[in-house]
């Protein structure tokens, strides 16, 4: 405050009528100073705590903001590190994926080959079985047809050769067999 007064005095210059660099009436200076001190003291007494409290709150908020910023920075740095690490691992991961894909493709290829081979074997066996069955069926049909033809031929031969004497001989043979069975 004294520096302020001195400054005012310097602005006014040392050209006051009393020849001092202070105003001419020292009492006015003293009372003014006193009033200023009183007003300042009242302000300090009444408004000081609120002002201090506001300043403390502001300081605390600023501190909180700084802490939050520090936390965010830490998190951002951690995220950055993680991303860096992930980026660093991406090549390895890509290589692993490619290797997995290659192994899967190889396994699939092997499996398909094995399945195709098994299918081919089964198809071949089924074909052989079908051919054998067809052969057996054809042979059976042929046998049945031959037997049918043979039976027809035999019937005709028998029918033409069964004269009355043969019929009587068959009947006598039958009667003898029935009698002999007793």
């Amino acid at each position, binding site marked *: 405050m004294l520096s302020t007064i001195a400054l005012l005095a310097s602005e006014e210059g040392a050209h006051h009528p009393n020849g001092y660099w202070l105003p001419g009436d020292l009492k006015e200076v003293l009372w003014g100073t006193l009033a200023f001190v009183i007003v300042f003291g009242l302000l300090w007494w009444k408004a000081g705590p609120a002002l201090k409290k506001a300043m403390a709150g502001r300081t605390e908020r600023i501190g909180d903001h700084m802490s939050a910023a520090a936390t965010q920075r830490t998190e951002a740095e951690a995220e950055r590190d993680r991303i860096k690490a992930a980026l660093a691992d991406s090549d390895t991961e890509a290589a692993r994926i490619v290797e997995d894909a290659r192994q899967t493709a190889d396994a699939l290829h092997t499996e398909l080959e094995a399945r195709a081979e098994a299918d081919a074997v089964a198809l071949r066996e089924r074909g052989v079985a079908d051919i054998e069955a067809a052969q057996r069926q054809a042979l059976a049909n042929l046998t049945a047809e031959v037997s049918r033809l043979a039976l027809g031929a035999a*019937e005709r031969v028998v029918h033409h050769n*069964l004269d009355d004497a043969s019929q009587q001989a068959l009947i006598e043979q039958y009667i003898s067999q029935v009698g002999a069975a007793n």
Partner: protein
Amino acid sequence: MSETRSSVYAEAVLAIARAEDALGAVPDELFRFAGALEGHDELREKLGDPHIPAALRQQIVQDLMGDRATKASVAVITMLVGAGRVGDIAKIAHEVAAAAASSRGEQIAEVRSAVALTDDQQARLAAALTARTQRPVTVRNIVDPAVLGGVVTTIGDAVLDGSVRTRLTQLRDAF
């Protein structure tokens, strides 16, 4: 024809035979007529044709049988033909013959052969079958060309098959 209906007709035939005192002739003549009918497809079709008037079909029967059968047998067969039971005459004849034989304590042997058995052969076969079954047997011979040769005898549920037809069939099955 159901079993019951053929049995009813058989009982009716037996009743007529008893009433006419022809219980000995009717079963035999009916059986022979059935055998003859079985061997003549055309006759069987004519007598069983519903488009031919019954009176005409009955007249055919009377003309065929004439004096070769008793009046009772002709009457019975004419009745069956008129009733449209031509297809069942064989079954009825068999039941009549079996019932008549049973009433005499005998059983009927249906003997199928390609040619007719002589009386002597029938007697010897009846004797052989009687000895075999321990019951008197009456032989009813049916000429059946399908037998080809030999004899097939059906007596009760038993079949004594000595036919050439069966031997040929067995030969075919052996292939």
